């Protein structure tokens, strides 16, 4: 059925992961770009391979796992949860107790990653199942408040469970991202230390300009996380196409109607909480391992809100939206910073933008301007501007584009689909 992308002749083909050639080609292209990204081999986007950007990209990948989880719960099953930070913390502390180094003041079993990473997800999922009954009883705003309570209970727990979380404001070290068979054994692959990529890649160096013998730790972490995100995205996408996913969507759209149709609401909500928490737990464990050390105060309401923002800005209910939203929210502060610095340079020079830039940027204490590059003003500092922008974006997206970045993408796509007959 060439040239008729919307004509499906069977249910199977309509439900396919990549139903059209265009989608298949663009997915392949995306994978190639994602692979080449950290190797500084791409035109235009090559800067992202720079280690200073790559640490942010890596955090975005970790957050993407968490966002995919929240997207299943909030976007697909319609259960607004502010407790995501709590489930991440449960996973992170499971990981650090199982995999971390024991100390005078902290517990740690030094087990390998193939135990602590899945366990982080499983324990978080179990806690999710415990919480789920409340979700069956309440909905909407009330559920948001119940899960909000979780965050505060969590904050109290982590602050006072010194053996698990380390001291308040000091925290503890997480296990490194490395694979070994058992504790005390030499790691087979390390994803965080500088060195050769993977032993099996050595004989087949497909990219002659890349030195695979000397990969930086960040690049290796990136590849590890990229594989993780792809696996979790596929899982999420597949879940949404199954009976379970459809029952979630039914509950989201109208829970009573769903029950009338024979959907078991309690079961559906419990499943959604469990699976979403599994994602969150894994994301929390990865977050600790990638950053290396976290303090108990990390898992606060702000983290939960950041995930809600990711879902709203990206577009609720879609895998693409969750991924786009994560990239956008995590990378935005850095982009704004670079942009402001660039504007400041323009304001001081006589480039074509200097006039416009001068309105926004205060270059000296007496100068008028909205933003300054100094620590405390005049006006806002870049860093304060970032905080303001974050809030403004959530408001703007909710009002102007409820479908989020994904919605914008759909509109652009539709525009070009019909071009030149778009109206």
């Amino acid at each position, binding site marked *: 059925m060439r040239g008729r992308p919307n004509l499906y002749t069977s249910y199977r083909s309509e439900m396919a992961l990549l139903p059209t050639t265009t989608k298949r080609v663009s997915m392949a292209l995306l994978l190639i770009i994602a692979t080449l990204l950290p190797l*500084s081999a791409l035109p*235009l*986007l*090559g*800067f*992202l*391979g*720079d*280690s*200073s*950007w790559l*640490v*942010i990209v890596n*955090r975005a990948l970790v957050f993407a796992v968490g966002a995919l989880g929240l997207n299943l719960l909030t976007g697909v099953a319609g259960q607004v949860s502010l407790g995501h930070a709590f489930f991440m913390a449960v996973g992170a502390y499971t990981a650090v107790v199982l995999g971390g180094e024991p*100390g*005078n*003041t902290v517990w740690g079993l030094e087990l390998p990653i193939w135990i602590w990473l899945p366990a982080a997800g499983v324990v978080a999922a179990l806690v999710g199942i415990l919480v789920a009954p409340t979700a069956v009883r309440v909905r909407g705003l009330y559920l948001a408040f119940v899960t909000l309570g979780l965050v505060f209970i969590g904050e109290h727990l982590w*602050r006072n469970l*010194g053996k698990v979380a380390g*001291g*308040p*404001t*000091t*925290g503890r070290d997480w296990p490194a991202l490395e694979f070994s068979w058992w504790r005390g054994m030499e790691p087979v692959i390390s994803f965080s230390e*500088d060195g050769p990529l993977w032993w099996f890649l050595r004989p087949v160096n497909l990219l002659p300009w890349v*030195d695979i013998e*000397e990969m930086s730790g*960040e690049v290796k972490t990136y590849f590890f996380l990229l594989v993780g995100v792809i696996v979790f995205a596929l899982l999420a996408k597949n879940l949404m196409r199954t009976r379970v996913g459809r029952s979630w969507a039914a509950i989201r759209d109208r829970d009573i109607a769903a029950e009338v149709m024979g959907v078991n609401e309690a079961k559906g909500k419990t499943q959604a909480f469990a699976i979403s928490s599994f994602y969150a737990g894994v994301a929390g464990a990865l*977050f600790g391992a990638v*950053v*290396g*050390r*976290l*303090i108990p105060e*990390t898992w606060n309401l702000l983290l939960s809100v950041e995930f809600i923002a990711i879902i709203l800005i990206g577009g609720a209910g879609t895998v693409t939206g969750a991924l786009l939203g994560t990239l956008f929210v995590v990378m935005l502060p*850095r*982009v704004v910073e*670079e*942009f402001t610095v*660039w504007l400041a340079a323009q304001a001081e020079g006589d480039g074509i933008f200097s006039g416009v830039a001068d309105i926004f940027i205060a270059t000296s*204490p007496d100068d008028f301007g909205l933003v300054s590059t*100094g*620590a*405390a003003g005049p006006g806002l*500092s*870049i*860093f*304060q501007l970032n*905080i303001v922008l974050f809030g403004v974006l959530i408001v703007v997206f909710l009002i102007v*584009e409820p479908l989020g970045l994904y919605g*914008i993408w759909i*509109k*652009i796509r539709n*525009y070009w689909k019909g071009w030149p007959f*778009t*109206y």
Partner: protein
Amino acid sequence: MRRKIAWLIMLVAFTLVVAACGDDDGGETTTTAESGGGETTTTAESGGGETTTTAAGGGETTTTAASSSGGEMLTDFGVDAENKVIKLGLLADLTGAFAPLVIDITDAQSVYWDNVNAEGGIDGWTVELVIEDTNYNVEQHIEKYEKIREEVVAIAQSTGSPTNVANLDAFKEDDMLFIPLSWYSGWGIPEFDGGLAFEQNTNYCIEAMNLMGFINENGGTSVALITFPGDYGQDAAAGVKLAADFYGINIAYDGEAVVIPGQDQTPVITEIVNSGADWVFATTNPSTFAEILGGAVQGGYAGMWTGSLPTYDFRLLDTPVAPILDQVFYQSAYQVTWGSDVPGMAPVEEAMKAAYPDRRPSDAFVIGWNESIAIHEALKVAIANGDLTRAGVAAAANSLTSVDFNGTSPAQSYAGTPNEYVQRLSAVYKPSLEAYTAAGGVEQTLSGENTTTGSILAKDFFMSEATEAFDYTSPCYEL
């Protein structure tokens, strides 16, 4: 339709911006990649017989460049030998929990280097600051360090304990000297920090021992101890307990790690009132302290109070607890307070007044100023040695035997063993509501005359017997 186009335009504009940033950074990446592969270390042929340091760490290239002063200068990162520019990084909390304090410190540092540069720099070298906000957030600290690690030769201020501990491996990997804005007793121990923490002043543990000496001198025989959990509170608690053993002072209530900011402080207040102690030793933040102080005095507690430096802020004199502070509280200090009559204060006051005539006076300006003096001395030595590599700057800092702060703070040494160089002096001040109000109180600006934060010297820089007897070989509190 029109909206769609608007979105498209925005998206294109956004892409262009990203692309613009990308071109710059892409260029940098190639350069570092080229130089990173070689792993060669060139040593300087210097006339003066200076020692040459080899750059540690994988993939770093040390290059030499002729400097105009005649000798050759070894450099690796953060130094432009051609234009004689040295770049220092600041990982400062400008939007987080300590922002009010850190903004003052950061601004004082900027003003300091602006003045040095205006007067011809260090031997013709100008110093530029690369300021990054860390939000007192561990992962942001690490990300921001990653962002600037190849641009700077040393970190002139790095806020916080957990942040610096988390980033310690990266500092060590780069031989990066850093000034921790945290007075944890581990920063003086080379086994812990790799000799890279360029600690300023004394630490919480020794400060607490000095204050216990002060309590002992004033006839105190029992103490109620209340602290935050973590490196800050428990480091001070360790010092209090060591000194209590030394002086035979009874700890009537041991509230180590019981004060949690933002929680209900009633149990702590009740314990203090019931303890019957002569003194309370507090290691908290100013707002929590004010809450506990007010509550305990209202509850009938009649003893005296003191505590670690960050427990008190002169802005508390603008609050209802001011009369109580004036009566019962002694504050600890590592530097003299704003408005003190010492020779070293004149340049600080003059420079800050010229740069920010409308700002309030702040004791934190002196902290920032002195941090800059210390790293200034280290850079002078590094330049004289002809070695402005990171390792060279760190070595220069660790060779300093006496950094003189002209009376604003006791001279500090970094050479030898921890027992030889750790700063054991701190001072005690008394907040005076009368002095503060007379100078104009909250209305004061730097442009005014005789500005003060209202602190009157009670005991000049001293070392208690407990401190003197203390063998400093490991951190008082293990993280």
